[in-house]
């Protein structure tokens, strides 16, 4: 641990990335990415493939060299340090367990590299195996374990020497859905219990929402938005963020005015709606109103609510919820999500319905 030097801020920052830029020939993989991870924080890099999230993670691990920018781990400059001199732990996508070593030797490897004594290593290995709930597997080989077990061993190997920050590159990508969900909760619990800083990469938005304290949404080498899962889900700042996380209805229109910080938009069919905005908009700007499907009520408009009319097309049951599809003005697709079994008053195919939502539950975004 470092001595507190007055700037408690820098001490609680486990990772700082400033303006990182990385190109591969013509291709710009990272364009000035900046991100911070605080002590005990679980931060997820989320984005489609090619958005630069893995490039960023590998640069932090020291496995590729950025062209410019700065990386600080626990306050110390580490931009171009070799991986073995960084205080990090990394869990790889395919686990990268050493096939010729036993589980015990795999987990003991980072400790041997740090010149721990054999007895201390054995002790630490068996302790961490308890933590990941695989006690007594020291003498087995990786190939004798299932995918999920190998994943836990990889995690144990990255945790055993208590690094400043643990990096994880889509660690659950190779597992099936059930096991993935189970391990998501396990990793989250482990994170809370050990109070570690974690940087997690995934392209699975659900995984990001479930696990993260904060999500860093990336797009084409840039950071689109950083915030809590709630912020990203309910208050996206861009159309891309709104579209990438969860499902959304996007209605186009034009800004006609502001009232108490609430933006008024005339939709393309002329109908006025109101909602808060997360970006700078001026009267006359083209805008998009984003409404989550579960915020929409069908044929139950209340005073003060926004509403549009649309033709009901069909309903699809997806388990606990049912999706209702509508066609609005100029063939605009709209969907509403209701609980399965909820009454659907007056809803019949090809019949008009009134779709309404509270101004608070939508966001007005720039058209871009």
């Amino acid at each position, binding site marked *: 641990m470092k001595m507190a030097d007055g700037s408690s801020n820098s001490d609680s920052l486990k990772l700082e990335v400033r303006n990182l830029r990385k190109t591969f020939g013509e291709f710009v993989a990272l364009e000035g990415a900046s991100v911070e991870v605080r002590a005990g924080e679980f931060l997820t890099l989320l984005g489609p493939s090619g958005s630069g999230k893995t490039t960023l993670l590998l640069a932090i691990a020291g*496995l590729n060299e950025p062209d410019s920018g700065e990386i600080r781990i626990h306050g110390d400059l580490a931009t*171009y340090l*070799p991986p073995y001199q960084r205080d990090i732990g990394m869990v790889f996508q395919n686990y990268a367990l050493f096939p010729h070593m036993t589980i015990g030797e795999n987990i003991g490897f980072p400790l041997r*590299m740090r010149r721990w004594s054999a007895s201390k290593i054995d002790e630490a290995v068996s302790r961490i195996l308890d933590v990941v709930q695989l006690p007594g597997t020291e003498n087995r*080989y990786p*190939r004798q374990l299932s995918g999920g077990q190998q994943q836990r061993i990889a995690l144990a*190997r990255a945790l055993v020497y208590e690094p400043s920050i643990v990096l994880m590159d889509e660690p659950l990508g190779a597992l099936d859905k059930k096991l993935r969900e189970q391990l998501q909760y396990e990793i989250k619990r482990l994170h809370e219990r050990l109070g570690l800083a974690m940087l997690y990469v995934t392209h699975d938005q659900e995984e990001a929402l479930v696990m993260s304290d904060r999500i860093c949404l990336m797009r084409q080498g840039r950071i689109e938005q950083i915030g809590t899962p709630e912020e990203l889900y309910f208050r996206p700042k861009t159309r891309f963020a709104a579209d990438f996380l969860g499902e959304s209805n996007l209605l186009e229109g034009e800004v006609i005015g502001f009232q108490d910080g609430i933006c008024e938009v005339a939709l393309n069919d002329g109908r006025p709606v109101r909602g808060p905005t997360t970006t700078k908009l001026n009267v006359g700007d083209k805008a998009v109103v984003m409404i989550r499907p579960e915020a929409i009520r069908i044929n139950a408009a209340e005073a003060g609510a926004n509403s549009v009319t649309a033709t009901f097309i069909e309903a699809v049951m997806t388990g606990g919820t049912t999706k209702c599809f509508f066609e609005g003005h100029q063939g605009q697709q709209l969907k509403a999500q209701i609980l399965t079994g909820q009454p659907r008053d007056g809803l019949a195919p090809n019949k008009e319905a009134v779709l309404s939502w509270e101004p608070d539950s939508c966001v007005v975004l720039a058209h871009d």
Partner: protein
Amino acid sequence: MRGSWPLIPAALFLAVAFVYPVALLLGRSFVGSDGGLSAENYARLGESTVVVRVMLITFKIAGWTTLFAIIAGYPIAYLLATLPASRRNLLAIFVLMPFWTSFLVRTFAWIVLLGRNGALNQLLQVLGVSDPPSFLYQFSGVMIGMVHALMPLCVLTMLSVMENIDKRLTDAAGTLGARPAAAFWRIYFPLSLPGAAAGGLLVFITSLGFFITPALLGSERETVIVQLVIFQIKEMLNWGFAGAIAIMLLVVALVIFYIYDRLVGLSTLSGGDVRGGASSRNPLSWLGSKVGNLLLTAISEVSDAIGRALGALMPARPDRKPRRIGGKVLRFVALAGIAFLAVPAFFVVPVSFSESQFLTWPPKGFSLQWYREVFDNPLWIGAAWRSFVVAFSVAVVALMLGVPAAFYLVRRARRTTAIMAFLISPLIMPHIIIAVALFYLFAQIGLVGTTIGLIIGHTVLAIPYVVVTVVAVLKNYDIRLDHAASTLGANGVRTFLNVTFPLIRSGLIAAFMFAFIISFDELTISLFVTGGQVTTLPKQMWDDALLRVSPALAAVATLILAFMTAVILGSEILRRRGVAK
């Protein structure tokens, strides 16, 4: 065995043209001078000091060749395995250069390079070494020639294992705190060891059956076992004794394979995984792995200490990109090794245009006299034509036999390992044994000195290459494409013609090339089976070289080099076009 018909032609062919003659030779070696059953030939093996001495020399040459091939080949294979595919393929062509340039062409190149006044010694003199030693006609020359000839085999075998080592493992070791040296010795090297073992095994076994290089680049003192067999048959007409020597060689080879299989597992030979778990049960390899582990830990500790010391002298700067000295050294060493493999063959080219009567360096003047001599000599023209006809026929026959067998192996067979082992057994058998056995068989049925005899002999050698190549292609072939075709209404024949064949075409071309080159370059079997009546290009070169190494041979070598290059380029273009579609 219902539905095993695709295997039958190849199996039958190998049974008749390979297993039967070898068995026959084995039987003959037990026939004594009085015609009765006797072990006298084997008794003579032990008594004859010549045989023992030659055997020891052969082992010495094979052992050193193996060691050098592994040590020099390892950095090359490592570099190739870590390069992106496009650059790897380019460098692989140079590594394979000795494969494509015939054995004899290469050996002549070394004569030009290594002679007392050869290119190498002249270079050494320029560099200030007065009176440099002659490398030719002694052990060092044999060593250089052998390592050059067999290193590609070693590199390719190691590469096939290294390609399967996940690059992320070394990265992971780095993030866990291992310096590059520790990551290499503790992670990469142990995982690549089966490749080195497999490469070493193949080189050793092949070395045991080698005689061209020792005969042309060495002296009396470098006489190897194969030359003894040739001598016993050609000069002494002592079949029983020659057979006994050959069988002894076979037994040695089999024993080595057996030990290897117990220690490492034969599947690594085709790039497969190291057999898991077996190591702990087998006391021999348990001991081996314990000793190996200790050794590796020691090496790792030493190199780690050096790394630490260097790190203390020149600490890594967090604010500046590191200079990768290690990577540059590796690249230099590997590229030097590749140059060693690729460059020598080209030295025959300038010599072939020499005005001088001898192989001198640098060549004097410019003249086409040697080409004229070659083209005016019906012996050379006849040999070239026969070589071409034989090689083409061998490629066709080997494909007709090998391709169905490969299909059977990949798609239907249950005991794949046993069948595969049988089909590729000619590959691991020293060629001299096949040659002597076939000669013995052919002598009895009048096939000696016939083109048919040559085609049969070469096809035995070519089948393993065809099977291995086509199996590799078929393993990567997604059988669901065939299933899709059949659900779309194509029958078996249409499916093969319209879907399977276009997709595996490039693999078949490669297999054809392999078979063609194997035959075109083959000397051992030709030496026996031609019976001195007909001749192939390699045999004509060999006979000539034994008399006198003249620039005319360099001219022939240059022509073969040009022809091979054209063939390789042609097939590569054909293959690429197939892939592009």
